[in-house]
């Protein structure tokens, strides 16, 4: 099982590298989708089937959105010259991040032995207290329903603003063309 996780993780790392470095935007988007499906398989083998299903659906939708955003434009390569300053800055930053992460990982419990103080209570009580067989549904829809409500508001707001941004024409343009001139008038117009 552990070897399978490592293989999937390597696949995702390679997919991410291809997605970031390839020149053609369509292949880049599809490589990012491969990373997403790798994450979904990982969820499945980590004992989270609900999340695996959600991840597959979300992955398909986000691929559609990204392909819509890339294909209508010209896909010529933008990275003509190497922007060395931001590359070096980024690599230094990532180096610091990984070092800090390795330092912080010392305090975690080992992989495979989670600290389940609250979750044990949820697992033993879900079927009796909420009537749900699936502990995940019991948590998102009953124990932590207010969290879910807040997150639904965030989702609603972001989709609403995407629609507002993508609207073709303003209301004013549809009703009447605004022909009034602004600024200082010319002498003959006075």
């Amino acid at each position: 099982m552990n070897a399978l996780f490592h293989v999937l993780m390597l696949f995702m790392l390679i997919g991410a590298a291809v997605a970031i470095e390839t020149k053609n935007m369509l292949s880049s988007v599809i490589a990012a989708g491969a990373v997403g499906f790798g994450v979904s398989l990982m969820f499945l083998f980590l004992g989270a089937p609900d999340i695996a299903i959600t991840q597959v659906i979300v992955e398909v939708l986000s691929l559609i959105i990204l392909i819509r955003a890339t294909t209508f434009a010209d896909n010529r390569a933008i990275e003509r010259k190497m922007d060395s300053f931001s590359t070096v800055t980024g690599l230094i930053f990532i180096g610091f991040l990984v070092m800090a992460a390795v330092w912080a990982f010392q305090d975690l419990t080992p992989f495979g032995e989670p600290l389940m103080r609250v979750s044990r209570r949820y697992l033993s009580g879900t079927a009796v207290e909420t009537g749900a067989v699936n502990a995940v549904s019991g948590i998102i829809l009953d124990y932590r329903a207010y969290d879910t409500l807040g997150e639904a508001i965030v989702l609603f707001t972001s989709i609403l603003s995407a629609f507002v941004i993508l609207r073709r024409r303003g209301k004013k343009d549809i009703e009447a063309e605004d022909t009034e001139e602004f600024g200082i008038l010319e002498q003959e117009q006075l």
Partner: protein
Amino acid sequence: MGGTSSLYIMNMALMGMGIYALIAKRHIIKKIIGVVIMEYAINLFLILLGYKTDGIAPIQDSSINAAQLAVRAVDPLPQALVLTSIVIGLGTLALMAAQAIKLYEKYKTFDMSEINRLRG
């Protein structure tokens, strides 16, 4: 002690690649892909933290009772939080793509440095 698993390190490398794309790339869609990869890495990290060796999914069917489930199942709490986080990721991705499309309509390019130059 010694909680550092090689899976955690690889996961952090995946997130580092996302940050690299966000900082160093000039194509807007590449930056969006960087954000998406970071999202994947963080979600996966939370699920990895809740994994129990040879654990089963936290679903109570007829073959198991509640006390056995509490011993054998993986942690359901990060799963519940990540489930909503994934869907929100889709919403933010749609917002970012909409803004990128509008920027392309205005400036006729996806290049970030060109967009900085053509102000107004």
